């Protein structure tokens, strides 16, 4: 089992550098503000959200039919469809396609004594554009162990890949880093000048490095934003054009998608493409919305359709509509907790509020802390372009996690005693009176570092009587 630091602990560490937290918060608030500006230019924005939500609800209720229709059309178009039940199967399918494509059979090369084979031997190389699904499946780690050299071509992803970090945000993978961090990383990996922070200089270095990658890789993997049942085609949205650069020069295009990416018709793109970029970055549309329908002559095209827990989530009435998500990250940008804890504190591929309602489905024990990493303020549900009731689902996951026994015993005992005090009027009044008496006469009982509240906050002043006591006294006067 992978060890991890829980959200509260990771956030405490993140908050040790308050200036950095302020910068992180302001940067993401700027993205939220850009989103606001963009959506307020669309008078029918709320109707558009409703339309997006209803289309997705319809898809969730007819998933089987749309997937079968998509497979049929795509196959007719000359695309090979693969079905993967889980992350492992997904990774193995991708590996097999790469191995089958490699100029030299990799078998002999892999029998070396070294536990981690040298990367890229025998042509085991791939360029990959952004795909949160492959993060979810930990594809890069899997392929690395098999000796496949993968280069992420999205600039942000390339930066975190060099640093051997996971992305901290689903749209802006390196948003936790400053220019100076990028300069340092590029100095180490691309040989740029030490101390360089000029974005143009650094971007140019990355561009040259990636250009060489695009020219030489024979296999390119992309994500899928929308797969259209009606045509068997799919759409990939990027701002850097890196998905296109990869696949146009490669002999093999692999596109990986969670099965919920399906939409019924081409015309529905008119809803989703308008919702996606405005919600994500405040752009009217992504710079590149690339439509793929069939392999070009001599090229092979594969689509891997992945379940990995989605069927299970679809079967949970309270949580199924989390599968409507189009991965815009608006809920991350608006989340006051995410902005002040950073993406890595969520210890899952998908951070933020949406990640916190998706992750417990995959592993309740590992992710039991995440639904509690929220004040339930509700801003996430309001910005969601497909109207997922994120904060209500966070509340519901808390109930499930307690019922399933994934809450620490100390907390359980604390809440049980609180419940018994608050359920009994006499017990409540006695406890209240005693508490106020102690706070007034022996303040050290509460004013110490064992009291988490008191670490950075004073206790409220103790009034001489409760409202009830005042009320009875005043009423007695009348």
């Amino acid at each position, binding site marked *: 089992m992978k060890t991890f630091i829980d*959200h*509260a602990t990771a*956030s405490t560490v993140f*908050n040790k550098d308050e200036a950095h937290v302020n910068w992180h*918060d302001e940067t993401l*608030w700027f993205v939220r503000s850009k989103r*606001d500006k963009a*959506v*307020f230019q669309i008078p029918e*924005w*709320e109707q558009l959200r409703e339309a997006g939500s209803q289309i997705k609800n319809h898809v969730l209720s007819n998933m089987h039919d749309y997937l079968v229709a998509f497979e049929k059309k795509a196959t007719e178009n000359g695309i090979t469809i693969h079905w993967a039940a889980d992350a492992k199967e997904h990774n193995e399918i991708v590996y097999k396609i790469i191995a089958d494509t490699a100029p030299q059979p990799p078998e002999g090369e892999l029998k070396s004594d070294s536990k981690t084979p040298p990367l890229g031997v025998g042509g085991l190389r791939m360029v990959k554009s952004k795909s949160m699904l492959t993060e979810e499946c930990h594809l890069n780690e899997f392929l690395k162990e098999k000796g496949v050299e993968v280069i992420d071509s999205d600039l942000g992803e390339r930066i975190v890949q060099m640093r051997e970090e996971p992305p901290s945000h689903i749209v802006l993978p390196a948003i936790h880093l400053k220019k100076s961090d990028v300069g340092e990383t590029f100095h180490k990996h691309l040989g740029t000048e030490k101390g360089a922070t000029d974005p143009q200089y650094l971007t140019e270095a990355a561009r040259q490095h990636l250009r060489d990658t695009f020219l030489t890789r024979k296999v390119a993997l992309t994500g899928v934003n929308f797969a259209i049942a009606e045509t068997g085609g799919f759409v990939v949205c990027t701002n850097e054009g890196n998905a296109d650069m990869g696949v146009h020069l490669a002999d093999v295009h692999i596109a990986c998608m969670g099965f919920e990416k399906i939409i019924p018709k081409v015309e529905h793109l008119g809803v989703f493409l308008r919702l996606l970029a405005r919600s994500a970055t405040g752009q009217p549309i992504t710079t590149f919305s690339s439509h793929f329908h069939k392999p070009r002559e001599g090229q092979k095209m594969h689509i891997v359709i992945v379940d990995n827990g989605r069927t299970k989530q679809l079967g949970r009435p309270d949580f199924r509509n989390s599968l409507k998500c189009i991965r815009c990250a608006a809920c991350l940008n*608006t989340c*006051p*907790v995410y902005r*002040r*804890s950073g993406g890595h504190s969520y210890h899952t591929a998908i951070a933020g509020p949406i990640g916190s309602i998706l992750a417990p489905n995959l592993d309740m024990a590992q992710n039991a802390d995440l639904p*509690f*990493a*929220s*004040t339930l*303020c*509700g*801003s996430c*549900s*309001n*910005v969601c372009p497909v109207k997922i009731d994120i904060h209500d689902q966070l*509340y519901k996951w*808390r*109930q499930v*996690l*307690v019922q399933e026994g994934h*809450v620490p015993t100390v*907390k*359980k005992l604390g*809440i049980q005693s*609180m*419940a*018994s005090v*608050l*359920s*009994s*009027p006499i017990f*409540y009044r006695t406890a209240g009176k005693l508490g106020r008496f102690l706070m007034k006469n022996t303040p050290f009982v509460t004013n110490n570092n064992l009291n*988490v*509240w008191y*670490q*950075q*906050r*004073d*206790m*409220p*002043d*103790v*009034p001489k009587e*409760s*409202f*009830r006591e*005042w*009320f*009875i006294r005043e009423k007695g006067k009348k």
Partner: protein
Amino acid sequence: MKVALFVPCYIDQFYPNVAIATLELLEKLGCEVVYPLNQTCCGQPMANSGFEHLSKDCDNNFVDNFKGFDYIVSPSGSCTLHIKQHLHGADNQASTHIRQHIYELSEFLTDVLKVEKLEAKFPHRVGLHQSCHGQRGLKLAQMSELVAEPFSKTERLLNMVEGLSIVTLDRKDECCGFGGTFCVLEEAISVKMGKDRITDHTKHEAEFIVGSDVSCLMHMEGIMKRQGSSMKVKHIAEILNSPLTPRGGI
């Protein structure tokens, strides 16, 4: 009009003045106010922590205290929302009636009493803290995320108070980070969120942070006191109930 006053537990114990102001204000506006003496809590602390099943006795006690009134009014958006969404006592009919007839104070003044003017004076610059459950849950004000006409029931009432001016905040509806048990389970983030809210009010030279939820105010007050800030917190009931001439004056 017979109105039952629901005073949330922490207001009863630590902020009796807020409950007194609520009671006086409702009486001033012609309501016959009853305070059921055996009330305790709405059950939210358990439910939001994932222990909804442990709030059953609390729910039953709530129903025993509040059944049969025309209206139930509370100076807390968060507790009101919790009752509206989650009160399920053994007496189903009484629970339903309560869920449908409980109002947060500013909501009650606006939608039921239809208050158009108030005799109140509070000559100060105040910042309005829109508590999330009141705003996004009870829709006391339009939410900044939605493309829709702006309104604010709380702000409309505050604007009836003589001498009061409301400062414009940079982030008009960002959460303060209280969040119930979140405030201790996620202490670092909770405090940071509170500090950032306070800074927004300080930056715009508010003398008071005013809100409709004492829990948020208590959290921010705790941080402000630790910082040695001169800014204070006030619940809207205390402001809407501020007399035109100071008590003991003239």
